[in-house]
């Protein structure tokens, strides 16, 4: 993905002298270039994606048959906890920040991110946080094992692995806040002349809204984990009923962060899909302004629905009803998006390259995840499916076939721009179809398991759940190994391949397609003028 050549001196003919970036490791440690930093974010998140994937496959291997075969129950709980944290904070979120770094300056005609040095720091906070998380497996007591939501009092019982997790969350949060401030400032201040807010590409819009959400909720998470830390070590009783606290308060504060967090992971995905569908339909995005309004409504509503994660804690009836109605309301703007995308494709002139396939896969499966989301919003039904495999199926439909599929779609879409080479189309299609089939084999059956009564976060299960669990495990291994195809495609694309043109895709209309491929190390030193 590295665009190594500093050829803008030829391209632009500025008078002052330019030095190329330092070479070797120092280039990556000291870089303030948004493209380098974007590349590092993407590689980091892919590495975390593979680590989280290994944890997931260990979980599915244990669940292949009833009985305990491979791992002890306490290690199983560590795996489920770390799988969630690594995928959410290590894989999905940094990957979207990687896309933001690469694409936002190129799409709005800015030379770089607003705070270039802070950008470097936001990235370099991630590896120490990841190391803290991974190292916690090897300390006495092992990693945190309270689920990725680490509810007290259970999380107060854990060993020092939990403290390492808390510090890792602090660091990741600081990185996210800095990244968001950077993105907000860049978008609001560094757009090319003539690019009004309502002319920005949808990807930029969704990231602007996401960045505001991050700045709003990340400090809340930091506060929550700090209270947990002082409860653990300094004798406070925020979450301890015996000392006048309330364990349920943790859940309220956690989910005040946690629910916007799921939209933080899906809104930029909406943005990527909104770029890809018009390109391959050769037709403008349908309802651009309603898309912007829908995204903003989703973001605002997402801050008022947190307690739908807590329908079984025993809230007053009015609270249950309020959170049910508010949650159902989110289906309206989300529905608008699905309809707009369908209308974008309608009477287009479609072709089906890999980015388009992943985008259609996204539409199809994300909608299923949306439906199960509505089912989960209805309190009586949610009380039945809460903390079961139904919920596991639901959020993997929105996070894997939602966020992750959108990330793959975006990667295939922009890889030629980043590397200057076309990726291998047939390998890309293999990646898509394998992912599509195995994803559904893994997760569709989990709806049945949950409805029939299998709780989540259990290392062993009753005999009637055996067959579907076996199917699900087979699917998981298929899905996991299919991701290696993606690695192969990316490596192959970096090394060579058909030379990519400036306008890689016939239907691409945003600014990055007017730049040469690969995009030069410095772009838009002279901003383009948008008419």
């Amino acid at each position: 993905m590295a665009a190594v050549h500093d050829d803008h001196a030829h391209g632009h003919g500025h008078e002052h002298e330019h030095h190329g970036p330092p070479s070797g490791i120092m280039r990556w440690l000291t870089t303030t270039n948004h493209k380098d930093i974007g590349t590092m974010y993407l590689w980091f998140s892919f590495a975390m994606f593979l680590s989280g994937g290994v944890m997931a496959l260990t979980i599915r291997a244990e669940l292949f048959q009833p009985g305990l075969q491979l791992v002890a129950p306490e290690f199983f709980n560590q795996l489920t906890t770390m799988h969630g944290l690594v995928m959410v904070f290590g894989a999905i979120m940094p990957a979207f920040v990687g896309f933001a770094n690469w694409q936002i300056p190129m799409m709005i005609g800015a030379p770089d991110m607003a705070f270039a040095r802070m950008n470097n720091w936001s990235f370099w906070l991630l590896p120490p946080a990841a190391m803290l998380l991974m190292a916690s497996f090897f300390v006495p007591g092992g990693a945190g094992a309270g689920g990725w939501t680490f509810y007290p009092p259970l999380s107060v019982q854990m060993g020092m692995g939990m403290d390492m997790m808390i510090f890792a969350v602090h660091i990741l949060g600081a990185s996210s806040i800095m990244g968001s401030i950077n993105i907000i400032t860049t978008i609001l201040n560094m757009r090319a002349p003539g690019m009004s807010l309502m002319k920005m590409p949808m990807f930029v819009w969704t990231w602007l809204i996401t960045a505001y959400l991050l700045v709003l909720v990340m400090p809340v998470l930091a506060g929550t984990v700090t209270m947990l830390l002082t409860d653990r070590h300094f004798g406070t009783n925020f979450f301890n009923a015996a000392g006048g606290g309330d364990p349920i308060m943790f859940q309220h504060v956690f989910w005040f962060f946690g629910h916007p967090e799921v939209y933080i992971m899906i809104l930029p995905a909406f943005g990527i899909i909104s770029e890809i569908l018009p390109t391959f339909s050769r037709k403008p995005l349908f309802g651009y302004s309603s898309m912007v309004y829908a995204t903003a409504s989703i973001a605002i509503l997402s801050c008022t629905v947190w307690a739908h994660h807590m329908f079984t804690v025993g809230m007053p009836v009015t609270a249950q009803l309020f959170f049910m109605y508010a949650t159902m309301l989110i289906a309206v703007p989300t529905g608008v998006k699905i309809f707009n995308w369908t209308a974008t494709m309608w009477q287009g002139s479609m072709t089906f390259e890999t980015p388009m396939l992943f985008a259609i896969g996204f539409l199809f499966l994300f909608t299923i995840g949306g439906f199960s989301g509505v089912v989960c919003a209805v309190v009586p039904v949610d009380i039945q499916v809460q903390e079961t495999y139904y919920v596991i199926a639901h959020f993997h439909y929105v996070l894997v076939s939602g966020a992750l599929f959108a990330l793959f779609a975006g990667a295939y879409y922009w890889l030629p721009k980043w590397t200057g080479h076309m990726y291998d189309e047939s390998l890309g299609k293999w990646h898509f179809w394998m992912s599509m089939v195995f994803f559904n084999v893994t997760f569709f059956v989990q709806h049945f398991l949950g409805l029939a009564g299998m709780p989540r976060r259990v290392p062993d299960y009753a005999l009637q759940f055996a067959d579907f669990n076996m199917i699900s495990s087979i699917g998981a291994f298929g899905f996991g190994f299919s991701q290696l195809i993606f690695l192969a495609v990316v490596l192959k694309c970096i090394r060579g391949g058909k030379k990519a043109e400036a306008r890689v895709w016939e239907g691409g209309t945003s600014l990055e397609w007017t730049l040469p491929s690969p995009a030069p190390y410095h772009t838009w030193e002279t901003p383009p003028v948008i008419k």
Partner: protein
Amino acid sequence: MSSKAAATLLGILTIALYSGLGMAAADPYQLNLQAPQSIIARETYDQHMMLLWICLAIFIGVFGVMLYSLLNHRKSLGYKAANFHHSTTVEIIWTVIPFIILIVMAYPATKTVIAMKDTSNPDITVKVTGYQWQWGYDYLVGEGAGISFISRMSTPQAQIYNTEPKGEHYLLEVDNPMVVPVGKKIRVLLTANDVIHAWWMPVFAVKQDAIPGFIRDVWFTADKVGTYRGQCTELCGKDHGFMPIVVEVVEPAQYAQWVAKQKAQSAKAVVDVNKVFTLDELKTEGEKVYAGNCVACHQANGQGIPGTFAALDGSKIANGPKAEHINIVLNGGKAGTAMAAYKHLSDVEIAAVVTYERNAWGNTAGDVVQPSEINAFRK
């Protein structure tokens, strides 16, 4: 894409059709919620079916259009792209219609939520306490008041570790089930001793978190006699997957018999706290208590799990002064450790298990802890 879409549609249709059949609980291919056994569970089941059908209709509508487009509006067929990009009328219509559909979904749900919360006028009130990792049942009000017992999973470790064939109710069987009469309104008060647990009985659509330091209540009225099974559904540590719930619903006459039997047993079990036991009596009893409460963490050989659960064999506490040992068993370990409080065990049980721990494996404290000491310690 198109063939995949068709296949998935077919799959969803099949599921929707099958799910109406309400299969038996232990069907390995059960696709839907378990057959409901209470009014709330029936309403929940019906609402879930309604949601499923509405979602299916929308799915067919939206993806029908998309499928048509995918098949026909292709560049490879020479289709030229149109250039429309918005239509306020259409956009208003598809904002309003989902809104109306949601109201249709929310109306019955609202009624059920209100009914679920009505725990007034119960026939029997039972307090259920979550422990790591077992359930305690205390019958507080109504027929059977005063009955109190602990309910543990009865599946042997050998089945879990695959050295014995697994039984029919593997992981879903307990030593002492909760027993309730059919057709009576049962109010369940929930709390927990250590961490948050959740009490789930799928056939009654009851799932309520058990929160340490707080009491929540839920209710159910069983429609039919039978044995119903559920599990803890809030991650509560190592053996979260191994704390099942069994409710036996019986005829009122049979319930009266059960109550009489329980009362007789507890009368027999009342022991004078001042009775003096021998070391061997306490060790034998203590081994049983240990197997029921301690073995999950500290292990049968007293070695614990290094780094996670402390070893008792050779430990300072088990070989040190009695008072400290009694204290940690009664009141739990320091904040921040997994050692729970076992105040809910009887004086005899605590005395027995402490004596056992001080004289088992390599521990040779040699002293005997009598129930009277525990009784005194509690004060």
